[in-house]
């Protein structure tokens, strides 16, 4: 005991470590390290290398076993078991249990494959029956892009039909050239869309517009077209391509369009309390005609989302704007200016909250023909719409000429805007509308009856006039019947003088 105690004591006190303990456990003579389990660096590396190789080998073995098992089961399910199955005897129950699991898994997988192949068959049958009449002669072309067909929605298909109808009206070389370049470009978009960003797609599309416009203006097959015809061709191409690839190009996934749509939608929802007066819009919402026009203009704005081609979307904006001018015309005598127009447009946007507003404006900006957006009438209304949206996004107390407190109270819903319009409920409003409509109908019906009566009187008078005239004619010029006596004509009679110049009639002769 005393020996051990004396041996331990100096060790602890002096922190002395025996040199033997520091050396490599393998006894190679180098110093070892605790981190390497008491081995020196060289011996440690060798040891780990050996261990790793062993691990890889065992892993491989396990993997092979599992694979063989799987294969055996797969074959087994098809009724015949290959020789490999008995060979790969795996006595451990772990893999046996796994086998049971795989069995079920495999079964499911097989069913899935069968189901999907059946679906494919049905699909191909359907698609053949629909598409083959149009594209029957180009089966090789449709095959490399199976997803092109699958992505065709009804609208896209309609667009293609409409476009080919349009092309039929053009001369043959023109139609061939246009359909070829459009088809090539469409396929190009589809194949590159996955790889490149939307901005690059925009660049490609705009380049295409420029190219095709240049081609139509300069190429000899297009000679002799008027400027309007050329413009229509370009419009139709744009319409067709954009409708066809709408799904890939509208509100693309790699942009934040969708978030912005939601943001603006929520913003508009929060600004529900804004009245026309606050915006400085001169609107008589009580007026029946005005309220009808407001609804119409709002419908057009909402409709924009349903249209596919930029040109059609712009059409909605233009129609909506024209209705706003009609509204302005009812309430003021002076010509409507942008100062009157913009507030009403803002008010309509707040009321209608058109779906996917940001995506729609982005889509138009990206894929519309630039010349249309920058200068023309549609461009003007589109710009005004963009202004209105920017205004809504940045709207604050000063832009509504409210104090900061009032604004935040409205925003938090503490106070409600003064109900200047429609103090009555929807049903009553409709009832009044109906009453006035009925009144209008009544007036019209009375007018109709009166006119009908007048007409029948007129008819009666005319009838009498005609009969009296007939009567008069009969009395003034009575019909006198003359008798004509019929004189029988003898065909065989010799006309004497009249037949003098004629040859003697031929006599039948007998010939043997």
């Amino acid at each position: 005991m005393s020996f051990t105690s004396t041996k331990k004591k100096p060790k602890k006190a002096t922190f002395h470590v025996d040199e033997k303990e520091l050396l490599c456990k393998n006894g190679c003579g180098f110093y070892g390290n605790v981190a390497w389990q008491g081995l020196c660096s060289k011996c440690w590396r060798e040891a780990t290398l050996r261990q790793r190789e062993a691990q890889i080998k065992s892993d491989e073995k396990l993997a092979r076993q599992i694979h063989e098992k799987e294969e055996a089961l797969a074959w087994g399910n098809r009724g015949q078991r290959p020789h490999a199955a008995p060979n790969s005897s795996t006595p451990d129950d772990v893999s046996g249990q796994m086998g049971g699991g795989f069995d079920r898994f495999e079964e499911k997988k097989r069913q899935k494959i069968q189901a999907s192949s059946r679906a494919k068959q049905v699909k191909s049958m359907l698609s053949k029956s629909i598409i083959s009449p149009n594209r029957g002669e180009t089966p090789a072309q449709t095959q490399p892009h199976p997803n092109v067909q699958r992505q065709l929605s009804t609208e896209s298909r309609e667009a293609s039909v409409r476009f080919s109808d349009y092309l039929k009206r053009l001369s043959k070389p023109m139609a061939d050239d246009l359909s070829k370049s459009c088809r090539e470009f469409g396929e190009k978009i589809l194949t590159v869309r996955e790889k490149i960003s939307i901005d690059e797609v925009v660049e490609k599309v705009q380049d295409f517009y420029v190219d095709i416009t240049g081609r139509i203006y300069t190429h000899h097959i297009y000679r002799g077209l008027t400027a309007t015809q050329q413009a229509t061709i370009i419009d139709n191409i744009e319409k067709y391509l954009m409708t066809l690839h709408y799904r890939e190009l509208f509100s693309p996934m790699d942009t934040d369009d969708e978030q912005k749509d939601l943001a603006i939608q929520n913003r508009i929802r929060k600004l529900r309390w804004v009245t026309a007066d606050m915006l400085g819009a001169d609107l008589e919402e009580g007026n029946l005609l005005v309220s009808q026009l407001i609804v119409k203009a709002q419908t057009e704005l909402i409709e924009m989302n349903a249209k596919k081609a930029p040109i059609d979307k712009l059409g909605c904006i233009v129609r909506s704007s024209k209705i706003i001018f009609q509204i302005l015309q009812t309430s003021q005598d002076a010509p409507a200016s942008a100062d009157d127009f913009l507030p009403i447009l803002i008010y309509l946007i707040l009321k209608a909250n058109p779906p996917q507003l940001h995506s729609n404006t982005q889509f138009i900006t990206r894929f519309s023909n630039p010349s249309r957006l920058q200068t023309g009438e549609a461009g003007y209304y589109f710009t005004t719409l963009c202004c209105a949206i920017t205004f809504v996004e940045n709207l604050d107390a000063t832009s509504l000429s409210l104090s900061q407190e009032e604004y935040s109270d409205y925003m938090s819903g503490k106070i409600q805007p003064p109900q200047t319009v429609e103090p009555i409920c929807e049903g009553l409003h409709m009832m009044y509308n109906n009453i006035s409509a009925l009144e209008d109908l009544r007036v019209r019906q009375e007018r109709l009856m009166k006119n009908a009566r007048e007409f029948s009187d007129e008819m009666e008078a005319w009838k009498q006039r005609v009969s009296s005239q007939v009567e008069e004619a009969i009395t003034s010029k009575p019909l006198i019947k003359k008798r004509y006596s019929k004189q029988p004509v003898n065909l065989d009679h010799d006309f004497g003088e009249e037949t003098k110049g004629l040859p003697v009639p031929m006599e039948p002769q007998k010939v043997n």
Partner: protein
Amino acid sequence: MSGSRVDLKVVLLGKEAGGKTSLVERYLHDRFHPNVPYQNTIGAAFGAKKVEVGGINVTMGIWDTAGSERYEAMSRIYYRSARAAIVCFDLTDDTSFDRAKFWVDELLKNEPDCKIYLTGTKYDLIEEEKRPRKVEETKVEEYADEIHCLVYETSSKTGQNIKELFYKIAQDYVEDPKNREPEVDEGIIDSSQPNTKPDKCSC
């Protein structure tokens, strides 16, 4: 109107009730009726008109803008890619001239390719009704010298200087070598056109 191609975008900037709309109305439809109800005013905020300059047809798209201060932040969207801007101010309202200066600054900063035409409106009010002139000619001319632009004083009531103003815009557009299309012939300047010189040209 909407289908025709527009070559040149002309934007109207100016304070609310500064006479922008009357100017367009007079130019497009040649009328000015302050008290008589308008017929067919639909689309008055946008107008297109074809002008012939020395045998070349130029279609101008005339864009009216909202002049109210609350829409000030958006005016940039309006004048983007405009080739000419008519900056209006009311000759009888000195605050309108300050606003005009604001737009001129904006244009110089953001649209260097856009030509500016400084236009004092409602000249008839000074001439016929003897209203006091609030914006002095010398002040305007000094400013125009500074920014190198033309000055017009117009009256939509009498039509004074309005056709001249728009004709000058079209002429400048055609004469600008940047806008000349390759197939357009040389020597397009037509000096025989009457009344093309502005009232006061400070250039």
